[in-house]
């Protein structure tokens, strides 16, 4: 992916604090939490010496040793189960599953085990486990390495679902996820790892789960987006501004728990809503957000809610087809014009 030598990445942590890469922010969060709490450890495929496919665990083996940075064989279901067992007995594991697509091998452990234990045991036990994974299309990785599957986890009571869009959010939310006592599905986006942004240099920078963020303020329309759809919506909003349309971009950051109030407040202000979701449209989180908004802010809406989402299809390999299957800036712009009654063909 990148030619950055391993040591450089970590050397950059403290030097220029100005802009930090998303993957570096995640790395900082892991390292800080591991330093703070000896119960935190990480396990996954190729995360040790190799530092992980996206370099998020770079340098952790050197600092914390092989005992806390554990390279696992290709046995996703079982090493996630190992994480659950460790979480049940006093540890705080962070399990890495290389691609969200591979969590399909682990669904029993996530859905029937991790999500259920606390409830089935009458509150006797907690599963403070973070399952870090990454999803999304954009690199021509085709149908089994490009999916956006957050809706599957969103659907399961007992799981929290976190999807950061910026380096600062990635860091603050990962730290909070590690300290949370529930199983957290922490979904990164493969196109975001190399993006840069400011990360507060304060000690213990944390963002509580369930607190969304206004990424851009605006009076005319509310654009709700998460993960990689946030930068895409912001880019669309810049173009729309040139037409005199001021879009407010709301990033819930965590889908479960959901910051409903932040979303509803924006809707009450702008009275127009476009929800942007990379995942396929059918059965998606966007549809659920639309149902929440119409139930709780119907009287404020000036028209139907628009959903811009992926096509209901597997992601094709061909790059042109791939981008045709997931929402692009132009799709967002057209949807905004439509809800505002402007000419959508322009």
């Amino acid at each position: 992916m990148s030619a950055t030598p391993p040591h450089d990445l970590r050397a950059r942590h403290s030097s220029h604090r100005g802009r930090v890469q998303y993957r570096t922010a995640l790395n900082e969060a892991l390292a800080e939490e591991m330093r703070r709490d000896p119960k935190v450890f990480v396990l996954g495929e190729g995360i040790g010496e190799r530092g992980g496919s996206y370099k998020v665990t770079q340098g952790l083996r050197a600092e914390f040793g092989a005992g806390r940075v554990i390279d696992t064989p290709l046995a996703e279901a079982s090493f996630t189960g190992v994480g659950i067992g460790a979480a049940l007995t006093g540890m705080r594991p962070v399990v890495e599953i290389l691609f969200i697509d591979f969590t399909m091998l682990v669904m029993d452990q996530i859905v029937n085990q991790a999500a259920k234990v606390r409830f089935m045991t009458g509150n006797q036990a907690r599963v403070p486990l973070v399952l870090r994974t990454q999803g999304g299309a954009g690199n021509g990785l085709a149908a089994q390495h490009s999916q956006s599957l957050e809706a599957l986890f969103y659907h399961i009571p007992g799981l929290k679902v976190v999807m950061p869009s910026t380096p600062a959010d990635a860091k603050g939310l990962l730290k909070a996820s590690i300290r949370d006592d529930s199983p957290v599905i922490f979904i990164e986006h493969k196109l975001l790892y190399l993006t840069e942004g400011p990360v507060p240099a304060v000690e213990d920078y944390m963002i509580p789960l369930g607190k969304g963020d206004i990424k851009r303020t605006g009076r005319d329309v509310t654009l709700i987006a998460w993960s990689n759809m946030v930068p895409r919506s912001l880019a669309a909003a810049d173009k729309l501004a040139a037409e005199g349309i001021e879009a407010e971009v709301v990033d819930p950051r965590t889908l479960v728990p959901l910051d409903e109030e932040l979303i509803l407040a924006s809707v009450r202000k702008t009275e127009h809503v476009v929800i942007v979701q990379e995942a396929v449209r059918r059965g998606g989180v966007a549809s659920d957000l639309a149902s929440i908004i119409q139930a709780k802010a119907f009287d404020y809406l000036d028209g139907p809610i628009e959903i811009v989402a992926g096509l209901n299809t597997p992601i094709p390999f061909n790059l042109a087809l791939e981008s045709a299957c997931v929402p692009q800036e132009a799709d967002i712009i057209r949807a905004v014009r439509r809800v505002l009654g402007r000419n959508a063909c322009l």
Partner: protein
Amino acid sequence: MANPYSKAFLTGLYRQLWTIRAFETRCIQLYRQGLIRGYLHPYLGQEAIAVGVCAALGPQDYLTSTHRGHGHCIARGADLRRMTAEITGKQAGYCQGRGGSMHIADMSQGNLGANGIVGGGTAIGVGAALSARMQGKDSVCAVFTSDGGVMNGTFGESLNLAAAWDLPVLFVIENNQYAVSLPVREATREPELYKRAAGYGVEGRRINGNHVLEVYETAAEYVRRCRAGEGPFVIEALTYRHAGHHVNDPGTYMPEDQKEHYRKMDPCLLGRQFLIELGGASCEEVAAIEADVQQAMDDAVEFARQSPETTIEDFLEQIGGDQ
């Protein structure tokens, strides 16, 4: 043969064997009366495995259990009142009536829970062992599984992980020769299940799972060696269900002569024989244990009957509202 067992030890084993027998027999009655709902998989016929293995565990140890898990829970020292309350869905149960037969757990005793998913607890047990080692605890985890559980991919994965990481895990395969109606020999070309251990560089052994002392001795040796860093190990305990897969399965596929053969090797009868012949107990003493167990069972059922129902308000309040 020198007898290394004290009367008190043999009494303890027999009391547990008989408690499981009485508990399961009573649960079947309660099920027929409609007091227990859902699935109920009796442990009848397999009692010696849970009792022998748990006798070899210490208070710091863990276990993960299966859908046929009442025996493990009792052998680990569960309170019959709270167990009965759980299985009848009452607030006073171990899991406040939210788990039931297939999910009963007692974290305070390191019993990480029964499991409704065959094979679902195997990796979790390996995680408990890893966690214990990371925390510098001297704990072993007994992972109970079944002939059906071994056919699931997580068994191989988990055994491999435990072996690759030298973890103190004792895998206990309760080979009762059927997964519902599927005989082991139709499920695999190699019906001697312990042999799978060798493929992962792990020592394993097949033993008579109805013989509580043989189970105890094997488990004690393996637990000791787990603590010495030699784990994991595999025990294949050969046994037999006394009846069908669950209360409503008549088990017509189980041949009569096979049932008869195993009835003669009833683990409770064998346990009673050990208590009398090796422990020097009298028939009156045995009868007194059984009467005592019966009374505890009656008391537990009465307790469960009197226990208040759990409510949706309690449940939602505890979990922090509608999720």
